[in-house]
């Protein structure tokens, strides 16, 4: 069931291609909304700038996943993303939430897409956080696997004795990473978001 793209798809393409002039349109159109929203909800100018960037980056990451087609207005989708992210931030820092529920303002589809976007971003942060805790050797090695180098290329690049050693090391490192991730308190809530 493929939907036709909304005309706002151009913003998604602009982000994916780093089209500065079109990205500036995004800033022009929505910077005030974000600023007002943040200021109404316990934040300042800096927070608004950060939130804007982080939310756009989350959209980029979601858009890179193969099945993405923007079939809703960008404004509604973007709002739901930055609103959700700001709520999370306030919750974590213990600041009061004064966000009023805007019922029925945006479509169900917009909300679903925004949730996928936020969760995807949260999962990336979770995985990166624990990746950093691995040994330098593991990080170096896994980084190359994530760059899609073949096991043979990795063997040659890092001077391992054999592909088998490379594989063994990779399994150990991935196992470690996975265990660290599962021990994180936020893992349970995020787990449901990727299981299809």
């Amino acid at each position, binding site marked *: 069931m493929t939907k036709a793209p909304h005309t706002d798809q151009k913003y998604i393409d602009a982000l994916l291609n780093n089209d500065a002039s079109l990205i500036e349109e995004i*800033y022009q159109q929505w910077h005030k909304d974000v600023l007002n929203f943040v200021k109404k909800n316990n934040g300042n100018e800096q927070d608004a700038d950060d939130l804007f960037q982080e939310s756009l980056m989350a959209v980029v990451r979601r858009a890179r996943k193969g099945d993405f087609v923007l079939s809703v207005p960008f404004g509604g989708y973007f709002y739901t993303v930055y609103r959700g992210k700001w709520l999370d931030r306030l919750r974590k820092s213990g600041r009061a939430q004064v966000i009023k529920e805007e019922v029925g303002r945006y479509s169900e589809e917009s909300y679903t897409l925004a949730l996928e976007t936020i969760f995807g971003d949260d999962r990336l942060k979770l995985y990166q956080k624990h990746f950093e805790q691995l040994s330098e050797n593991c*990080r170096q090695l896994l980084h190359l696997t994530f*760059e899609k180098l073949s096991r043979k290329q990795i063997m040659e690049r890092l001077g391992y004795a054999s592909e088998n050693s490379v*594989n063994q090391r990779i399994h150990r490192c991935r196992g470690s990473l996975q265990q660290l991730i599962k021990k994180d308190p936020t893992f349970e809530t995020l787990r449901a978001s990727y299981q299809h």
Partner: protein
Amino acid sequence: MNFDYKQIDQYIQGKLEGEALANFEAKLLTDKALAEEVALYKDVEMTLTSAYTHEEEDAALAQTFGQLGKKYFGNQTATIQEADSAKVKQDHTKVVRLKPTKERTTKQSSGLWWLRPAIGLAVAALIALLIFQPWQADFIQPFDTPYQLAMTERSGSEEELITAQKAYKSGDYAEALPIFEKHPNKVEVQLAKGNAQYYLGNIDAAINTFEQIANGGSVYTSTANWYLAGAYLEQNQTEKAKAALALIPTSSEHYEAAQKLLRKLGN
């Protein structure tokens, strides 16, 4: 819980075939824990691959966002609604003094905090490749050789253990492990068990196993400390690794290697 990350990895990479593939897929349908582990493995793979294959693009985007952010969020006036965008640009030059520029820059860089791990990793990887390449391989490589379990053939109940030993020697750690678990009083077997857990990527479990042996006061204490150090290094727990290595006496076969490694680790 012990998972066979080798098999999971092969499955995700599409390298399992025929009967092995069919068996694994059947297991996925009935073993919920395994299915969840595989789902996580896949998601980690996809998520981190996407992030690291787009590192440069993300850096370029960050620059664009940074510049636009300065332009559209640079104003410190209280009521931004009253100013149109042209006035905002003007006010920026007058008003920016009100907020200390130091705070501005640190906050600005905090806006890119999500990028720092990516950049940090790229830089770390580059440095590691250019400078520490041979050294890095040596660091953990001593632990690439598993403990050489050598039990002799005996009759009766020991047969299963001999089978497990065979599996262990041919690298089939997942098969060997459950049998090793049944012999908690055989220290040698426990050493092999720790190794099997280590090679399967279950580092926490391996650490537990080796610690128990190391504290057990048997003749295998120093060997256990050797492998314990390796497991700690996998988790970046350098101090604990050094502590374990330092406990290995001169009489141990691992003494030389331990001392060498201690020198590399510093202090």
